[in-house]
Every structure is written in structure tokens, then in C-alpha cells.
């Protein structure tokens, strides 16, 4: 449905310097799927989205939507945004304050280039779009009278009313408060699957990305550093950056004692002990490495096998408890199901176990 090949985009910075905003990005979104572009601010995700929309003109590469070439640097093709047949939801919603709710949604139909809609068609389509986002009955309100969450849904209705081939969403939930954001997350996912929408979603919120996406492209400094399903990205991050950015994790630094091919188990020596780890990168014997292990993957027990540590702090979070455990000078976060029988006190000595399939050895980006 959406194909991007080797996209490049530079911006002029202060003076004569150029900033590479997007570097060699290639993507493929199948019909009916939602792809998330995830990354910290300034990583190039929004620029990529705006290139897809046609609001930015890339320097190099090719963009194809629904089999039609929208941009091709090599052949000088550039289809203006108005003719790309896309819907878009902006972070600021960009609701027109001088129009009613109805007129905001009707706008794409009124200016449509593909066909002329008569007024009864417009009324019917707008009504359906508004009902889809649960704003039925709000037609005659002024757009500025709506709450933040309602404006967000209005923006969505406007994006959907023209039945676009592709829906682009630029951080649509980031201006909502936490509770509303979680609720809208479910609604968006539900809408996207029931309507069978193909969508590209930009966010810096990893939990949003994990919840919504069929596939996630993690961006860093203008490049895609990992592309995969949410589970894949979370379970098998391929770099320190991804492991750190998606979810929370512990890092233990050390060097490779016994190397292994990618995906196999080798040995890593750290100040906290020697561990059997799954290798997420090709690493030579003796090379610097960092072991990533998620807090919920570490086993914690009062005695038995493992590495000895002391609990320095403990936070009760409801269904789980987070412990901060000191392991020979390094603090490690351990998350454990909150059950009375496993409760450990601050100051207690505990034994930690790191399962070899969950401890991932990767390139040490910080020391390199």
C-alpha cells in the first residue's frame, strides 16, 4: 500500500550547515496495517511523515501510495499533497476555529478534486464520520467549544471523511491528559482495525507504539535502527538505543568471554559476575559489550542460586513491586508480581537470576 525507498531529506541549518533529517529510510506498509514511526524528538520521524504527505519535498528516494508513484527524485515526479488521497491528523489538531464542527468535517468533500458531492451526500458522509468518532449530534457546535479530546476526534473525523487510502497521524494523542490518552488509544486501534485503515502513526511514546502498531520502525538520528512487530522490538531489541528507548531495562557493562553467533548463547564477564547471554550482535572475543535485561525478567528470591545483592529501595505500584537492588556497586531494577509471600524488605539480602534467553549482549554504544 505504502512503499518508501531510500528516502533522504536535508534541512538548511544555521549558517550554511545542512542537517540530515532523514537518511536512507525504506519502508513498506501492507493494506490495512498500522505502522508506527517511533523515536525521540528530532529523530526524523515527523519529517518522514510529512514527506509521505507531500508537505516536504525529499531530496532523494521514491514514495508510492496504492501503486501510484507520488514522489520519485530520479524521474522528477512530485504529486502535490492535495492529490495524494490521504487523510492526516495533526498534533495540534489544526481544527479551523472559524468553522462549525460540521463545516470542518465537510471541508475535504467540498474541495474534493476527484468528484463533486451534492449537499445530501455531504450531510450523510459528515454524519457518518462524526458518528464513527462518537461526535454525532455535535454538528452545529463551534469547533472552539469542543474539549481537547473532542477536538482530537473531530480532527480524526475530518481525516476519515474523504475515505483516504492512507491515514497519517502525527502524535495525535500527545496533547491529551494521561487517562484520555489511554482511552483514545483503544478507540483508535478499534477504528483502524474495523475500518481496515492503512495508517502511519508518529509518536515518541513507546507504550503508545507498542499498544497500537502492527509494526514499529524505531528511528534514531534520521535512520531506522530497528523494524519489527511490537513484541519483537520489545523482546529482541538489536541495540542499546532500542532497548533503552522502548520499555525500561538494566544495563550491565563488561566484555565478551566466549562469543556466539547472533541469537545463540555465549558468556559475558561483568563486574557483577559472568553471565550466559543471548547475543543480539556479532561481537568478538574480548570486545566491550553491554548486557540488557528487563526488570521483569530478573528472578528474585531470598536464597538459592544466583548473584547476591542487597535491596536498597522498594516502590509499591499496585500489581507489581519495583525493587532497587545493589549488585557490587551497581543498582539494578527488578520488577516482581506483588504477592505477600515473596515480599522482601529494604536492606534484605536477595539472590538474583538472569535467564540466558532474556539477557541480551549487544554493542556497547556508550563506551564506543
Amino acid at each position, binding site marked *: 500500500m505504502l512503499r518508501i525507498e531510500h528516502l533522504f531529506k536535508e534541512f538548511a541549518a544555521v549558517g550554511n550547515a545542512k542537517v540530515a533529517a532523514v537518511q536512507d529510510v525504506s519502508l513498506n506498509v501492507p493494506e490495512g496495517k498500522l505502522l508506527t514511526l517511533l523515536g525521540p*524528538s528530532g529523530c526524523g520521524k515527523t519529517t518522514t511523515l510529512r514527506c509521505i*504527505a507531500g*508537505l516536504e519535498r525529499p531530496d532523494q528516494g521514491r514514495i508510492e501510495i496504492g501503486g501510484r508513484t507520488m514522489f520519485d527524485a530520479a524521474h522528477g515526479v512530485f504529486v*502535490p*499533497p*492535495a*492529490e495524494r488521497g*490521504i*487523510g*492526516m491528523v*495533526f*498534533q*495540534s*489538531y*489544526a*481544527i*479551523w*476555529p*472559524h468553522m462549525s464542527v460540521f463545516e470542518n468535517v465537510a*471541508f*475535504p468533500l467540498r*474541495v*474534493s*478534486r476527484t468528484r463533486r458531492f451534492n449537499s445530501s451526500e455531504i450531510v450523510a458522509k459528515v454524519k457518518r464520520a462524526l458518528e464513527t468518532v462518537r461526535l454525532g449530534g455535535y454538528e452545529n457546535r463551534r*469547533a*472552539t467549544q469542543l474539549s*481537547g479530546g473532542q*477536538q482530537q476526534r473531530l*480532527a480524526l473525523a*475530518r481525516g476519515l471523511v*474523504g475515505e483516504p487510502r492512507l491515514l497519517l497521524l502525527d*502524535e495525535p494523542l*500527545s*496533547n491529551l491528559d494521561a487517562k484520555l490518552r489511554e482511552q483514545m488509544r483503544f478507540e483508535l486501534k478499534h477504528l483502524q482495525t474495523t475500518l481496515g485503515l492503512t495508517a502511519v502513526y508518529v509518536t515518541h511514546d513507546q507504550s503508545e507504539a507498542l499498544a497500537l502498531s502492527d509494526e514499529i520502525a524505531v528511528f534514531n538520528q534520521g535512520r531506522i535502527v530497528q523494524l519489527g512487530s511490537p513484541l519483537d522490538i520489545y523482546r529482541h531489541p538489536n541495540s542499546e538505543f532500542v532497548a533503552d528507548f522502548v520499555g525500561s531495562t538494566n544495563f550491565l557493562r563488561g566484555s565478551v568471554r566466549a562469543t556466539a553467533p547472533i541469537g545463540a548463547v555465549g558468556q559475558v564477564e561483568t563486574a557483577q559476575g559472568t553471565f550466559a547471554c543471548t547475543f543480539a550482535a556479532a561481537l568478538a572475543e574480548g570486545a566491550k559489550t553491554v548486557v540488557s535485561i528487563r526488570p521483569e525478567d530478573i528472578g528474585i528470591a531470598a536464597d538459592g542460586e544466583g548473584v547476591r545483592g542487597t535491596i536498597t529501595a522498594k516502590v509499591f505500584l499496585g500489581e507489581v513491586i519495583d525493587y532497587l537492588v545493589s549488585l557490587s556497586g551497581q543498582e539494578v531494577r527488578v520488577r516482581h508480581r506483588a504477592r505477600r509471600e515473596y515480599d522482601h524488605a529494604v536492606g534484605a539480602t536477595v539472590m538474583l537470576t538472569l535467564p540466558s534467553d532474556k539477557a541480551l549482549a549487544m554493542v556497547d554504544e556508550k563506551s564506543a
Partner: protein
Amino acid sequence: MAVADTVEHRPELLSRLAALLRPWPLLLIACTVAAAWLVFVPVAALFYTAFTEDTPFGPGAFTLANFVRAYVDNHILRLLWNSVVFALGTGVVTFLLGGIVAWVVERTDAPGRGMFHTLALLSFALPGLLTTMAWMLILSPNIGWVNTELKNLFGFTQAPFNIYTMTGMIWALSSHYFPLAYLLMGPAFRVLDIRMEEAAVISGARTWQVATRVTLPLLRPAILSTMLLLFVRGLESFEVPRLIGMPARINVFTTEIQSATHEVPPHLGVAASLGMTLLVICVVGVYLYRRATANAEAFATVTGKGYAPTPQRLGAWRWPVSILTMLMFIVTLGLPLFTLAWQSLFRNATPPSLSVLGNMTVDAYRYVLGYPVFLNAVKNSVFLGAMAATFVIAITFIMAWLAQRTMKRYGWVLDSLTFMPIAVPSVIMGASVLFAYLVLPIPVYNTIWILLIAYVTMYLPYGMRFTSGGIVQIHRELEEVAEVSGASSPQIFGRVLLPLLAPVLLAGWLYVFVLAVRELSASIFLAGPGTHVLGTISLTMWEEGGSYGAVCAMGIVQIVPLVFIVIIMRRLEERVSARR
């Protein structure tokens, strides 16, 4: 029962009285009384003078004769027509020029945007009297050098331009006023979220559809309010009608009001009734302006956290747009400045050419800088400017702080009191202050203090805009944290508020100073033999002999320090915006 009641109520009454005697309410009352005196006394004097007989001993019995006489003798319809055409014409031309600059500076990536902003500020700071004189030296049919050059070049028998027409007047004022339109439209362009337009583009709208259905409707409140304010400013303007309109016999309200008071014997009643008529029109205009700006705020929408205005990329058009804008400044600002500078080096009207370079002389400067009347006017203007700026900023600072922090419930009283003078044209302010202190037993008539009273009143609204805007920017918690840390009120004031506000206060001070130093239209009513100011002395020199060279040299001597002040203001502006 009744006894018990009074016993219970007495402490409450006492505590209420005691509450009134605390410093903040006292200060509030003092400020309100002072502002009310400044604002209402002149207006009352204007009413009084308009509705009473003119006698050699002051106002007499009640009469409507002044209005009859004013409307009949001055051909009120003709006057209205001229004033409205002039104000509308300037409004439109000013809006177009200023709107283009605002668009270039705020919405594009054309090079030189910072410089255009500075040039606009500079153009705004120049005394209108001087730019008007310059345009007469450029476009007068007899002495205008551009006309002379064009006649020589193309063999015209008649001068192609004539400044002594309505068009000439509109041009002379617009070239000087368009920075005002720029300053008013700039923020509107700045806050217009470009995503609004992008959303329309994505929806499939063509460029003209985006412009007519999204951009223009969104800008409409700003356009409307800017046009209204420009119209009112056009009605109020004095310098251009005085210098160009009077010889051309194109009379407007402001010049007629001044003529009536300067006739022998003066027709103060006639002047007052014309003034009241103009005041009513201006008050309506300003009222509509306020409503339009209130609507503009209702248009404010949610803007995203990551919202940053993206300029329109002009691509190949970057330089052409920049060069055209520069050209506009060269014509509207460069040409008058050059003319003044050139002419200041020659005694008689001399068109610029290489052949006369040898005749250049600095005699005019020597004369002006040794001319005691001029030097006295410089002294008066600088003194008045500094005093007016200090008073205005001090008063409005206290008022803004009271209105926003301690006495919020009564804040609107101070706000509206200080805003009122904006509706009073400075010609009317000058005349009204004159009427007031001719009658009141306060001996300020013919002294420098009467000028100071008028200046402070006129500039209260501007001072309030700076101080109030500055205090809004400072989060209340910054003061509260100082209070919690144990600071006393004076300490909070001196160590937190003042340092944070210093750039804004200084910018406001300079702004009022510039306005006061270039003042003419109110001063012309109030300046006496020993209290001439720069504006009145320049006008006198222009009209009552004095060589062109001397008048222009006088202008250049005023402009040079103004350039430095504008540069300082620009620096302050950058410092304030950098902190946000």
C-alpha cells in the same frame, strides 16, 4: 437584641476601615484618582468649552452656537468627506504595505527579515513632521527634486507628481505609518498555525481555496482591527494635513481645530465643538477596534506542545521577495532620509547631483547648533521626554501590578482608565488640556508642566501595554517562591520583579521617550514662547523662513539619536524574546 447586633457589627466595621488603610488599597485609590484626574479633566473641559459662549474672560453661558458655527463655517460635510477619504486612503495603502512586510518577516524565509524589522521600527520612530517635509522636498511641483529630475530626463513640461493633492497626502502619511500596520499584523501572522493551512492542503484544497477559506477567515479579526486602528490614526494625524493639506486647501478636522484656536481672537468654542465631533467618531472607532480584538482572542485554539511556526519556503523567490521589500524601504525610508541629509548640506533647495558637490557646506549645522531657540527646544524636549517616560512607566507599573496581583477585583477600573486616552486624538488632547488649565486655578498655563500633563495622559495606554504585558509574562509563582523564602514585599519588588522586568520597562521608557520627543500635534496648543519643543520649533522654522538647509539640518540632528535609541530597543526586544 439590637444592642447585641451593634456590638457584633462594630469590630467588623472597624476592621473594614482598617483594611482600607492598608498600603495596597491606599495606593490603588491614589492611582485611580490620579488617572481619573488626568483622563477626565481634559474631556470635561472640552465638553464645557464646546457648550458655553466664548468670551474674552473665559467660558460664558450655555449655548449651542459653537456647534452651529463650527458646522456651517467649516462646511462640516466637506470636512468629514476629506477626513474620511484621507483616513481610509491611508488605512488601505498602509495596510497593504505593512501587511506585505509582516508576511515577509513572519511567514517566509526571505533573507534580511531581522533588518526589515529594525527598519520598520526606525521608520516608525521618525518624527512625522520631518518625513512630511522630506516628501515636500521630493515631490513638490516647484522644488521637489524628483520632479525636477524627471522633467529634465523626459522633457516633461509639467511636474509629474504633485504632493499638494489628496493622493500626495495619503502617500506622505502611508510611507510613514505602514510600520504600524506591520507591527499590528505581525503577531497575527506569527500565531497563525501553519498546520491550519496544511490541513486544508491535505484535504485537497487548491491554493486559492486555502487562502479564501482558511487563511483569510482566520486573519479576518486581525485585519479588521488593524484597519480600524489605522483609520482612527488617519483621522487623528496632524503633521501631513498641517504641512501639505493647508496650502492645498484640503482641510480635515485636526487642522481646523488648530486653526480655530490660533485665530485672533481664538474661537475656542468652535474648536471644542469640532473636537467633540472628531472625538465621538474616534471613540466609536476604538470601541469597534476593542470588539474586533476581543473576537480575535475567541479564535485562539489549542496549539500543540511541539508547535513551532514553520516559515513558507520561497525557494527561487527568496531573493526577489527580499529585494522588493528592501526596495520598498529604500523608497519609503531611504528617500526621505537621503533628501533631508542632502538638503541639510545646501542653503537653498538643491536637487542631488554630482556637479554641486563642491557647493556643499556645513553652515546649516553650524547655524542650528548655535541657535539658542533651537537649543532651548532640544533641552525642553529631552527633559519632557525623560519626565513623561519616567512618570508613565512608574505609574503604569504600579497600576499593572495592583491590577494583576493584589487588587484583582478592581483591576479593570485601572485598565480601562489608562486605556481611554487612546481614543483621544492628540490634537484634541492638546486643545482640551489647554481649555482645562485656562479655567482651573492651577498655574501651569504657559509653563513646561502643562506639556508634561498632556504627554503623561496621552502615553498612559502605551506605558500600560508594556508594563502590563511584562507582568503577565512573569509567573506569579516566581514572586511567591521569594515570599516563601522569607523576602519582604520591597525585597520581592527590588530583587525579583524589577530585575526580571528591567528590559521591558526600559523598552517602554524608550518608547514613550521617542513618542514624546517627536510630539507636535498636542504641543502646538500648549507650547509658549519659552517652552518650545522640537516639533513646534521645526514647524515654525519651516513656515517662517529659515533656509531649507537649516530646517533639514535640524531634522538630521534629531534623527541621529533616534537611530541609536531604535537600535537599543531592538536589543532589548531580543533579550526579552530570548528569555521566553
